[in-house]
């Protein structure tokens, strides 16, 4: 399911569709053979916009989740392995971020620094990494008690080498599964932020299109509903993949 969407998103530029910002059609035209999903208030073809939106939304989701997992995995491993002062500092950082509603913080960030696609990615990553860090920390803490770790230490491996060469590879699978779920969460968050008009105005993401369709919701509901359907479809498939992986990798975590 997701794959088709991904391929579509990759191929949009080469499919001979009208440019996503070109305004060559009648305004607010309902779906018809010529414009399969209708057109929006500026006469832009919705099919093109939704497919371009797939590109933007998926990319933001992937990048943000990727960045969040990198931060989360690194900080989580360090705090799980070094239980001393460093661990405490990272722990309290995680705790603080956990009580701040991520969406709230992201909102403030975007308003304060203006909005662009890159900033969206960074903001979503910065506000969502603690979840992954917590899982990684718990994993590292349990893996580091195992015998082979002690063996590695006995042979004289340095702390960092033990951590990243021996402990992390064993501890990482559940964090990876969570990162996949995180992609869905990131896409939802991007959609929410864009829906409030805080997205990147230059590129159509799904949330952005929904936001632009809002004033015409009664006369031209397809503008908001089509990207909405794509959004739900994508997130359902991402969650299915993530949950499936989680069940295989870490049945205990999946049950929560």
């Amino acid at each position, binding site marked *: 399911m997701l794959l088709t969407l991904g391929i579509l998103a990759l191929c949009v530029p080469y499919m001979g569709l009208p440019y996503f910002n070109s305004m060559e059609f009648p305004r607010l035209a309902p779906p018809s053979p010529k414009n399969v999903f209708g057109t929006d208030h500026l006469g832009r073809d919705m099919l093109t916009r939704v497919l371009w939106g797939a590109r933007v939304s998926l990319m933001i989701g992937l990048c943000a989740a990727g960045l969040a997992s990198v931060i989360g995995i690194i900080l989580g491993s360090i705090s799980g392995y070094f239980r001393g002062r460093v661990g405490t500092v990272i722990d*309290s950082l995680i*705790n*603080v971020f956990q*009580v*701040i*509603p991520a*969406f*709230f*913080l992201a*909102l*403030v*960030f975007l*308003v*304060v*620094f203006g909005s662009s696609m890159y900033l969206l990615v960074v903001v979503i990553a910065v506000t969502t990494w603690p979840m992954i860090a917590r899982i990684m920390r718990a994993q590292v803490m349990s893996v580091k008690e195992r015998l082979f770790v002690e063996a590695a230490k006995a042979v004289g491996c340095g702390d960092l080498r033990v951590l990243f060469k021996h402990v992390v590879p064993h501890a990482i699978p559940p964090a990876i599964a969570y990162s996949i779920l995180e992609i*869905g969460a990131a896409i*939802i968050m991007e*959609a*929410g932020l864009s*829906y*409030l008009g805080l997205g990147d105005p230059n590129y159509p993401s799904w949330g952005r299109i*929904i936001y632009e369709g*809002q004033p015409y*919701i*009664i006369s031209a*509901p397809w503008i*908001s*509903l089509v990207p*909405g359907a794509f*959004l*739900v479809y994508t*997130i*359902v498939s991402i*969650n*299915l993949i993530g949950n499936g992986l989680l069940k295989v990798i870490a049945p205990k975590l999946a*049950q*929560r």
Partner: protein
Amino acid sequence: MGIVGYAVKKAVEGFFTIIAALTIIFFLVNLAPGNPIYFIAGDPVFLSPAVVEYYTKLWGLDKPLYYRYFVYISNLLRGELGRSYRFGGPVAQLIAERLPLTLSLTITSNIIAFVVGTLLGLLAARKQGRSTDTTLTVFTFIFNSVPGFLLGIVLMLVFGVHLKLFPVAGLMDLKNPKTGIMLYLDIAYHAFLPILTLTLILIPAYFKTVRDSAVQQLVEDYVTTFRAVGLDDSKIFRKHILRNVILPPITLLAVRLGFSLAGAALIENVFGWPGMGRLLLDSIRERDYPVLMGIYATVVTAIVAISKVLDVVYGVLDPRVKTGR
């Protein structure tokens, strides 16, 4: 460590967490480029320097950053949230006006979602593997993936625009205002769709928690014993399994209530509900920083307080929690 010591420890932890969270937002907002005066009053070209100077002084923007930071924190500790840039009135009063409206949405929907989610979860566990279970699981899975604001839009279109069963937006009927008890009924009528949206979005989490832990309980020895003794299933579920699975969803409820102070913002925006979320979005748009930070402080304090109280309650209920992991 005694329970009092534990409670004190948690309170201190909570206090520092709040301060840290507030520090982050303070520096974020104050290091922001642009002078808030220009956002509110307009282009500096049209402003007389005297006005700008007056407001800079009034809002304390002429003081150095660290000074403002200490003033801000000490004011907060005294419960003083400052004055709104836009309205000039105290922030605390603005929040107090909007808070009940948001709470009426979030508390209602959380409680409905808690009850419905728990019941459905138990039902699914009882019919485990059968079509009821599968249907419920699939439905909650889908609702779990739908962004709240989108569901809100869809419900608004279906019930508000096409079926005309419920009003599309707003707090009350402004064309023919009601009085007395009818006013409250009118507000409840307008609140129906936002509450429905929130409830549908919240149910999956409760459902999943309850179903999964009930399924785990089913294979426990005591259930087998009761079944062997001849107790019927509905009684086992009502009297025994319910007791064993009710804690996690209660925890969830408490945590959710904390977060829901801010979490309903998007849905309030869809339905034009004048609660805290709307106040938040407006103040963000208008760069009304004192209001923004006031809401933030309220929300964070609520979340931290709830989670620390939960910690202590668990410490009382289950002494193992205290000694830790």
